[in-house]
């Protein structure tokens, strides 16, 4: 919970910044919409910095790369690849989950930019697939009697070839911070389609999907991206 708060603080600060920027730019660019401004199309590459923040605050290692291609005025095709390696120290089980994921889909920018601005507020959709492995290091036996000494039992087991597929609904935000550089954040609601879990353990965490809660097909995610645009076409 604490870690989450630390992260939200970052995000809130970021938002406040964006809100101010947005406010100022709107005032500055209130001239009539007569001039047709050339809009840049291009491919953008980026990195999800939230992973780097998590590497400081959690027992976690990972990277996520992002790319999008603007194909219409408001439509972007998006691809994401990433790798997560997350240790989960639970009250009952110490385990680790590591693997890679791919996400593909689109973003639709529904924000009407004042002329000359290239901010986005978008809805996104992704199809995602993850392939991973899990490990159990030790566990506490669930025994209510507690007559015998009851500490953690070290009993290593490894489960390979696990997988999951899910979809993501995204609400996100991108602001141009300088020429061809964008900063953005997105909020994701993940809905599991299927997952392959081992016989005698559960998928407590799925790379790309994040924490899996009990009896719940939904998950959430936050990204905090920095992207660079390689301009290709001007329209």
């Amino acid at each position, binding site marked *: 919970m604490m870690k989450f708060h630390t992260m939200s603080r970052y995000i*809130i600060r970021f938002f406040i910044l964006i809100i101010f920027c947005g406010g100022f730019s709107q005032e500055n660019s209130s001239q009539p919409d007569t001039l047709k401004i050339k809009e840049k199309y291009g491919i953008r590459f980026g990195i999800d910095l939230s992973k780097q923040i998590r590497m400081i605050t959690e027992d976690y290692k990972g990277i996520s790369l992002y790319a999008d291609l603007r194909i219409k005025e408001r439509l972007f095709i998006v691809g994401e690849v990433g790798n997560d390696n997350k240790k989960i120290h639970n009250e009952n089980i110490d385990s680790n989950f590591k693997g890679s994921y791919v996400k593909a889909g689109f973003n639709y920018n529904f924000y009407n930019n004042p002329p000359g601005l290239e901010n986005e507020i978008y809805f996104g959709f992704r199809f995602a697939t993850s392939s991973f492995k899990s490990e159990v290091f030790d566990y*506490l036996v*669930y*025994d209510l009697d507690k*007559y015998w000494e009851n500490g953690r039992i070290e009993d290593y087991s490894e489960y390979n070839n696990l997988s999951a597929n899910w979809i993501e609904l995204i609400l996100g*935000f991108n602001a141009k911070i300088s020429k061809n550089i964008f900063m953005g954040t997105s909020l994701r609601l993940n809905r599991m389609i299927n997952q392959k879990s081992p016989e*005698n353990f559960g998928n407590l965490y799925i790379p790309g999907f994040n924490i899996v*809660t009990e009896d719940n097909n939904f998950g959430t995610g936050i990204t905090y991206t920095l992207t660079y645009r390689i301009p290709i076409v001007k329209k």
Partner: protein
Amino acid sequence: MNFHLYSRLILILFFLVACEPDDICLESNADTPNLILKFVDSFTGETKSVDNLRIKGINNNEDFFLGTVDSISIPLNNYEDNSSFSFTKRFNTNQQNEDLIYFNYTRNNVYISRSCGYKMVYEIDNIIIENDNSNWIEDSIIEIRTVNDEISHHVKIYH
């Protein structure tokens, strides 16, 4: 709608996402099963209670049970493949009689859930009653070898 309003909306959504339910193991989930013993008369084979029985694990400082019963469920040690108990009949009387009993088994873990973790189930290999020339326990029979629930007794103790 303008940029400000959108931003605020997204901000509110961030707070909603930050609320994660705590995973708590509900006691309705069956925990590690105990071994259920039933005391029977060695002549008639009918249920017969043991007077003033004290059960204590060997190497355990606490008494597990003290009283008069015709069946009892005892916890097995999850750290080892055997548990040893002292069963004393007519405890604290001048007819006190202590028998030592050893349970040998293999352990298997069973995953329950994120919040409850693992429970243990057992496969009973054998039961040894240490001969002390004045045993009150005459025999034991394993009726259900696999201890994975507490529905009925697993072992009959003849006395």
